[in-house]
């Protein structure tokens, strides 16, 4: 590393940062590819089907089905991008970029382990919230620039839905920063350290966790909140006019957002890289002990579980009707978060915080 530092001179910090960015973005992209496969497989088995089991890599039989995402990607890349007549060409083509940019940029402040983070900024929680709130521009610009009524309807639905659920999401994060006393995601995880899953934010903030996760499902326009796409009502919603790579980028953004929401929920409520049960004697074993101690693998496990919940929800619930989505967001989630912030505030006051169980957390 010193060799490269001398070789590149003043350009070294830029190059090194680029290398780190690629080291984050590339695995996310590969994860998105396999998440689409996992989605089809999981939903397939839930509906007593097999799912994709044909496409294999280099004729190796044991990979049957595993190469399906790559087949899909190549199919999409080789399709023509059709720009509809009367559409706004510039906005039409920039909309997928607007959609994927925040989904990837938010990963800059996500820690994978103690100190393992691209940008350790002070207000990283606010940064993430600001960036995820920009994701809606991709959807509404796409819907408007397409010059199509279906796309426009999808964009309108999505804009109203995302803005509504963002409020509940923000309130859920207020509870997290109250108990952690910090806006830094690394510090939020460190505040949950101590006694395994008992000291995670999950138990004291259980309602906020549920609200955050469900609002996250709504923010990413996933089933049962996928009225922005609503195949049976408005064809494919905001991206009905998109084809080829432009569609693939929207697809990528949706799944990258799912992984992002799962990662954030794991960091804020499920203790991030901390193991669920802290056993010091197991962690002291030379090599195997690393698996039981804190590490990025716990974070990945938690993300994988929450992603499975995304797929599970999709296979289980029918689509919400639009007015019921709005009712759930405004009349159930926002009051619930407000009440729970009050409860947490009282529990953190001076005499109460010393009583168990509050003394474990605050």
């Amino acid at each position, binding site marked *: 590393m010193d060799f490269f530092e001398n070789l590149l001179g003043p350009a070294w910090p830029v190059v090194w940062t680029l290398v780190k960015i690629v080291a984050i973005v590339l695995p996310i992209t590969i994860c998105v590819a396999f998440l689409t496969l996992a989605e089809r497989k999981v939903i397939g088995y839930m509906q007593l089907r097999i799912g994709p089991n044909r496409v294999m890599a280099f004729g190796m039989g044991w990979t049957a089905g595993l190469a399906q995402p790559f087949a899909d990607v190549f199919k999409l890349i080789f399709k023509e991008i059709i720009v509809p007549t009367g559409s706004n060409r510039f*906005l039409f083509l920039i909309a997928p970029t607007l959609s994927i940019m925040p989904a990837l940029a938010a990963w800059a402040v996500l820690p994978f382990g103690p100190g393992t983070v691209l940008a350790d*900024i*002070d*207000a990283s929680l*606010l*940064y993430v*919230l*600001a*960036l995820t*709130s*920009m994701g*809606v*521009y991709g959807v*509404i*610009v796409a819907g*408007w620039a397409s010059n199509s009524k279906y796309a*426009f309807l999808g*964009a*309108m639905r999505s*804009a*109203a839905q*995302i*803005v509504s659920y*963002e409020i509940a999401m923000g309130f859920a994060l207020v509870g997290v920063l109250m108990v952690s006393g910090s*806006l830094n995601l690394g510090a939020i995880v460190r505040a949950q350290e101590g006694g395994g899953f008992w000291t995670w934010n999950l138990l004291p903030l259980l309602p906020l966790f549920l609200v955050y996760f469900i609002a996250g499902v709504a923010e990413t326009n996933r089933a049962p909140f996928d009225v922005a796409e609503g195949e049976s009502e408005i064809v494919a919603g905001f991206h009905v006019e998109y084809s080829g790579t432009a569609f693939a980028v929207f697809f990528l953004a949706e799944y990258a957002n799912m992984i992002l929401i799962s990662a954030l929920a794991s960091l804020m409520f499920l203790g991030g890289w901390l193991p669920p049960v802290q056993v010091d004697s197991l962690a002291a074993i030379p090599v195997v002990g690393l698996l039981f101690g804190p590490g990025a693998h716990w974070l990945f496990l938690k993300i994988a579980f929450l992603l499975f919940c995304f797929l599970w929800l999709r296979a289980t619930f029918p689509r919400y*009707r639009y*007015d*019921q989505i709005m*009712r759930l967001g405004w*009349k159930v989630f926002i009051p619930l978060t407000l009440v729970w912030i009050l409860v947490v505030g009282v529990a953190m006051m001076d005499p109460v915080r010393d009583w168990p169980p509050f003394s474990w957390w605050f």
Partner: protein
Amino acid sequence: MNFQAVVFFVLAAVLVLSALRVITARNPVHAALFLVLSFAAAAGLWLLLHAEFLAITLILVYVGAVMVLFLFVVMMLDINIDRMREGFWNILPIALPVAVLLLVVMAATLLGPYFGLSMRPPPPEAAEGYSNTRAIGMVLYTEYLYPFELAAVILLVAIVAAIALTLRERKNTRSIDPAVQVAARREGRVRLVSMPSEPRGVSGPPPGDGTEQPPQPPK
């Protein structure tokens, strides 16, 4: 020219150009999107001044929420540009003096002795462990607590007033209350009726003179 200066001039140029396009763009949707761009550039300028909380809040509140709703409304309206330009020459005699006056006031402020680089030295380098967010929170909830709460109450009143103005029950339309629908239970909708079995092959009503009572549902 160091790196910070380059970033500043790029962001400032983007800000000025996009602000100009906000008022010159023919299409209102384009104007709103240029406003979003100018907000983003302004947030970048604030970041350069070590005001990361303000910068992120600008993005979060204005770009993430206010402008989304703004775009929402602008896209829904079918704005006819030509009709809006009809009264231009009639309004000009009033609008021109107002614009000139505004320009003079702004120039007097910006070019006067109370404004300028000499009056605003660059912020000192932040101390180790200094948090802009924490500092704003400390000031906001101690020194400026009452103005802050007052502003919050005024905003709340505005929200309540806006809802009260638009919330009305129209008599001539059908409306549904989702709360009632969600609260619907099986007991309110489905009734199991016990029917006596009928002999096979008989179609039509069972024999009789039609005066028997129908089978009663179980209580």
